[in-house]
């Protein structure tokens, strides 16, 4: 066991996979000697060399297209986007080509796209994206979004070993703000399985990524008011752990779905639909959703704060829902 930050856990998992399997290669901008904009791959070049840690030209279509090509002939590329936002520059490759390869060609495309995502770091409209819904809508991707170091390591390892393209969302605000115990052992976290972070009986907060931490704060705050909140951390967005979601909602009868991505067209809408289709008779209140506002991410601090969910907004929503 070691106490690692979220970003260290990602590095650790990636490192172990590169040690384990020679077909794992890294592609990205500034990922070599520099170790990447956020330093996830610091030290990798020295250990694994230039042939496996590839500092690419500045061109996302080339990075994502080349990763796809290498994957279909049996390598296991991990592509880093410098910020999740810039995945759009290579979007056509991913959604048109990568995602449907197995369906069309009947061969696996085992690659990982690492996306440093999320707002709350004063990144403004072009450095703050939560891009999961774009990929969620496109059949063929798996999507994971860890919230704690333990899962960050287990999921990056699972992503590398998966035979499908996996979108790995790593929230920038968690990188150095979240620490946790991470086993030194070679373990993976099953893609498609979430966890109950906090058991509770009165209402369920269903969430993933950065807002898991806000949900836990909310659970603490609500406990003081005598309300027992269950926090479901999805970890995987595709496939969704539908059974876990439904079991929690059947128990508590109330669901608050939260994500940092903006509300409309977000994954929360799909979760709400699943709950209403499969657990309607267990509900004691309408399903409630909370996400960022439906606007581009603004730069100025008061605007960004107004735009984003936070523990205070979650607690207010949870309080209302509990009182329903």
């Amino acid at each position, binding site marked *: 066991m070691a106490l690692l930050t979220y970003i260290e856990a990602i590095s650790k998992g990636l490192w172990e996979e590169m040690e384990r399997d020679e077909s794992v290669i890294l592609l990205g901008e500034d990922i070599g000697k520099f170790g990447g904009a956020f330093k996830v791959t610091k030290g990798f070049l020295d250990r694994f060399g230039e042939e496996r840690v590839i500092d690419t*030209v500045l061109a*996302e279509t080339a990075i994502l297209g080349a990763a796809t090509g290498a994957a279909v002939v049996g390598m296991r590329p991990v592509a880093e986007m410098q910020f999740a936002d810039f995945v759009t520059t290579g979007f056509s490759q991913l959604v048109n080509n990568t995602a449907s390869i197995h369906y069309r060609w009947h061969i696996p495309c085992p690659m990982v796209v690492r996306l440093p995502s999320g707002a709350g770091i004063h990144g403004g409209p*072009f450095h703050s994206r939560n891009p999961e819904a774009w990929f969620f809508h496109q059949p063929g991707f798996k999507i994971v979004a860890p919230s704690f170091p333990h899962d960050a390591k287990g999921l990056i390892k699972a992503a590398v070993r998966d035979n499908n393209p996996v979108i790995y969302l790593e929230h920038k605000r968690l990188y150095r703000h979240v620490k946790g115990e991470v086993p030194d052992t070679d373990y993976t976290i099953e893609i498609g399985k979430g966890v109950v972070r906090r058991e509770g009986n009165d209402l369920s907060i269903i969430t993933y990524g950065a807002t898991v931490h806000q949900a836990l704060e909310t659970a603490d705050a609500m406990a003081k008011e005598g309300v027992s909140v269950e926090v479901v951390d999805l970890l995987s967005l595709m496939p969704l752990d539908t059974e876990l979601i439904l079991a929690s909602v059947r128990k508590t009868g109330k669901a608050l779905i939260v994500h940092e991505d903006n509300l409309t067209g977000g994954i929360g809408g799909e979760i709400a639909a699943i709950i209403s289709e499969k657990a309607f008779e267990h509900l004691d209140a309408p399903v409630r959703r909370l996400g960022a506002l439906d606007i581009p991410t603004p730069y100025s601090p008061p605007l960004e704060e107004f735009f984003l969910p936070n523990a205070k907004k979650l607690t207010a929503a949870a309080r209302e829902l509990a009182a329903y």
Partner: protein
Amino acid sequence: MYRLTNEQYLDLYYYMRLTREFEETILKLYRQGKIVGGAYTGNGNEATAVGSAFALEKHDYLFPMHRDMGAHLVKGQTLRNLMLQHLARGNSLSKGRDGTGHYADPPLRIYGNISHLGAMVPMACGVALASKLRREGSVVLTYIGDGGSNVGDIHEALAMASVQRLPLVLIIENNQFAYSTPVAKQKAMEKYSDRAMGYGMPGFTIDGTDIEEVYQVCKQAVERARRGVGPTLIESVTMRMHGHSAHDGADYVPKELLAEWRKKDPVERIERTLIERKVLTPSVKAQYEEKIQATLDDAVRFAVESPYPPGEEAVVGVYAE
């Protein structure tokens, strides 16, 4: 040849100095924690930014990048507005929705960059197309870095611009690094201007620290575009003297390389030339320095005293009326 008058030379000097001092102030504010996001400078790029924009007329369009503060200034942007942008104030041109040079100022015909490298150039083509269709005679000047020039958007834009003979000038600012990546890892050909041949457009490689060369070549490209002959690609060779942004110590840049380029510091270069030619006298220089300091002090004071936008305003303006 477009001969520069002494008066124009002094203007160029003024704007380059102003750019340098403005960006130094930005760095100071960043260190004081007054800038919440990233802070970028174009230290080493002043001659390119200023000299290229100086080749424009008032009715021409500017699509600047993150090293081109000097171009904003030449095109008429005020220090107050630029400072408000950097401090994310409610009365900034973007109303706090975005920072730095990311704003639009239609009366000045400045359209600030989006962060996605390359993405602005196809859009600049559209502006050039509109100018052509409306017989405006306006030219569009835009920029991209050595790294960013590899993004596919650039290829698509140049293909369109050359076939449509659009009034567009693209400057590739080859400042030796793209973040930590040296230019040798971005291209295998010798010069970025070699790419022009592939589009059937003229291409030039210039010394981007030499204000006179920058101005001459840009002016010719701009006037060629204005005559409707078509676009030009210019590679301006400079050095990114600072880190990628204020947070970056850039220890991956060899010290000797910096020392070599420091000898060609564009601001000192024009200053030396103008002193030698007796165009810049000590008293004129002192006057400029005083004026620059006063404008800067005013801009900082004005911006610091201006409030942030109220949070609730975030929801306004996603759609046009």
